[in-house]
């Protein structure tokens, strides 16, 4: 923070990232948010390591970033790692991926009133990128689980649950099959749970979890899990509340935080057509504002977005509407104006 204004790193990414982040900038300017964006243009067409390192340095410098998703070309050799992951854990140790899946009353879904917080270990597990071909035609991929990271994420989950007044934490695992790896994760969760007697703790096997989520999602409160299951469960939950266009995501480390859409889609097929749903990215920017302690701005924008979604019912095609991205953003801006007027009236 300098001169009363924050600086945040902005990574447009690929697909719909650039256009959505432009709308965020537009909205912040309109709302006079005391924040400047330092744009770092890395995308899938840039292949140098230097650019990635520059991005990491920029995030370190500012402490906070807002990003679009970077596409991974998986036909390239394995040494070319997923750029999103490199950003996430190599340089910044963003160990906790947090996603709150909350039903929006104005959006038509099969299940209503869902409010689940998913905490996903973000640095190890199946995403360690340790693979080798031991014998031709036989590939081994290593999943690493460590005590330290498991304790750390479990602790994060319970702290967050307590902070948000949640009642129960459920650990998701497959320890009946992966006895050592997921067994260790589960054991760490149990250890941490014993230090939080005010919060109930239980566990569930991942395949049963997905089955329960599509039939009885209301049994879940806060869920904590290793990396891959986190990927699966967060996508299932995002689908339950209305899709990838609605849910914001946050990646937290001890020193840094990066905000993005929860399901990390590039939206290649809808890029540039003004039909992408800006909700997820707008709500992600609100999470960022909260992180920067700019709570009033965060609430104002969030309430304006909710008003557009639930009252004006201006929806983009992904949730069954006919509106364009810009129409939605205009609506949010109108709602911000009326929120400000209402505040002035009260004064």
């Amino acid at each position: 923070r300098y001169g009363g204004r924050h600086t945040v790193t902005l990574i447009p990414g690929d697909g719909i990232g650039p256009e959505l982040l432009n709308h965020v900038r537009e909205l912040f300017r309109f709302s006079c948010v005391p924040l400047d964006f330092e744009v770092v243009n890395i995308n899938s067409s840039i292949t140098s390591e230097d650019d990635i390192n520059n991005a990491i340095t920029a995030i370190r410098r500012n402490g906070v970033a807002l990003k679009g998703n970077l596409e991974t070309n998986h036909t390239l050799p394995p040494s070319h790692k997923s750029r999103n992951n490199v950003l996430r854990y190599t340089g910044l140790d963003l160990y906790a991926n947090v996603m709150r899946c909350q039903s929006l009353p104005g959006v038509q879904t099969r299940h209503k009133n869902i409010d689940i917080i998913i905490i996903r270990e973000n640095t190890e597990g199946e995403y360690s990128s340790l693979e080798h071909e031991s014998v031709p035609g036989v590939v081994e991929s290593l999943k690493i689980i460590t005590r330290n990271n498991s304790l750390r994420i479990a602790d994060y989950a319970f702290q967050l649950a307590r902070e948000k007044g949640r009642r129960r934490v459920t650990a998701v695992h497959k320890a009946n099959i992966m006895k050592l790896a997921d067994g260790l994760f589960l054991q760490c969760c149990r250890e941490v749970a014993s230090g939080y007697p005010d919060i109930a703790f239980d566990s569930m096997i991942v395949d049963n979890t997905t089955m329960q989520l599509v039939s009885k999602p209301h049994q879940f409160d806060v869920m904590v899990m290793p990396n891959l299951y986190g990927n699966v469960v967060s996508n299932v939950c995002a689908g339950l509340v209305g899709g990838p266009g609605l849910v914001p995501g946050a990646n937290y480390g001890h020193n840094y935080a990066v905000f993005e859409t929860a399901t990390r889609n590039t939206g290649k097929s809808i890029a540039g057509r003004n039909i992408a749903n800006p909700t997820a990215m707008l709500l992600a920017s609100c999470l960022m504002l909260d992180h920067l302690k700019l709570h009033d701005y965060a609430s104002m924008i969030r309430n304006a977005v909710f008003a557009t979604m639930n009252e004006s019912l201006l929806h983009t095609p992904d949730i069954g509407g006919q509106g364009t991205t810009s129409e939605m953003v205009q609506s949010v801006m109108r709602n911000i104006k009326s929120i400000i007027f209402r505040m002035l009236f009260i004064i």
Partner: protein
Amino acid sequence: GDTQIFLLWKSLSQILSRVLGAVKSQTQPRTFSRGVHTVTLIPGDGIGPEISTAVMKIFEAAKVPIQWEERNVTAIKGPGGKWMIPPEAKESMDRSKIGLKGPLKTPIAAGHPSMNLLLRKTFDLYANVRPCVSIEGYKTPYTDVDLVTIRENTEGEYSGIEHVIVDGVVQSIKLITEQASRRIAEYAFEYARNNQRSSVTAVHKANIMRMSDGLFLRKCREVAENYKDVKFTEMYLDTVCLNMVQDPTQFDVLVMPNLYGDILSDLCAGLIGGLGVTPSGNIGANGVAIFESVHGTAPDIAGKDLANPTALLLSAVMMLRHMGLHADAKKIETACYDTIRDKKVLTKDLGGNSKCSEFTTEICRRVQDMD
């Protein structure tokens, strides 16, 4: 020089695979048009025996040309100290090639691996197939689901190879081989072709697991080349999950490695109503196929005539189709669906309060009325 040798090798291997393809008839529907066929029946534990009896009754009412050979599978220690299934069970299955199995209880700390694992290893059950079709009359928030998950069942994340590297650091190995990947891909495309399904989607995470899932994906692509009549697509696991809970009707046949298959097949079962109504089949090498219900043994209701035999019955229907007995399969399936749709005689888990025997009798009645 080199090119010639390569081309010669390529044409030889093509001839070889075509010959082997003709011999490997395990994926073709076998026409059992004459005579009575033996099926090995493994009733299982808990509610296993009563639901098996229900299935046998219904098959008898439908006059299906099947003769049941009941066998028990409890782990016994063979010569050399290795755990195995009883030799009578193995002999029966090797002879009949077709099995129907109820739920087996998984012993905790019994000193031996799970029976399901033993069966899988004994018969090299490499493909787990679960057709998930919405049941009219058993309402869930999802309608018109009609997809099939085909899961590689021998390797992947379930190799059981784990090590403690140093105190507090554990490594679990996921194994993907060219051979197993090709085999499951071939099964998926053959299944699609034989069951008039229009597309096969490979589910993977090759963006993260570049080499392992990359290998799986490559093999799927290669096999797809030989099945131009079936549409082939690829999709990330997370995208499949995201789309599956919003619109499951967009999916047809899904093929994937072990863990993703485990998760997705249960997810899809949840869409149509759970494990109590979902059929499942396991395809092995050498033409062996074992069909089973995938729910638990339900010890709390065992022996009380309260169990729901639908899952085992639909698995038996799947078995009939595998054997080519399509008319019998259709008859029994229709009777079952009609009973559920009618809602007059339903077991407790389906929302009614009839007994298992009453439910069974009702289906038998409908089957007989159809003749």
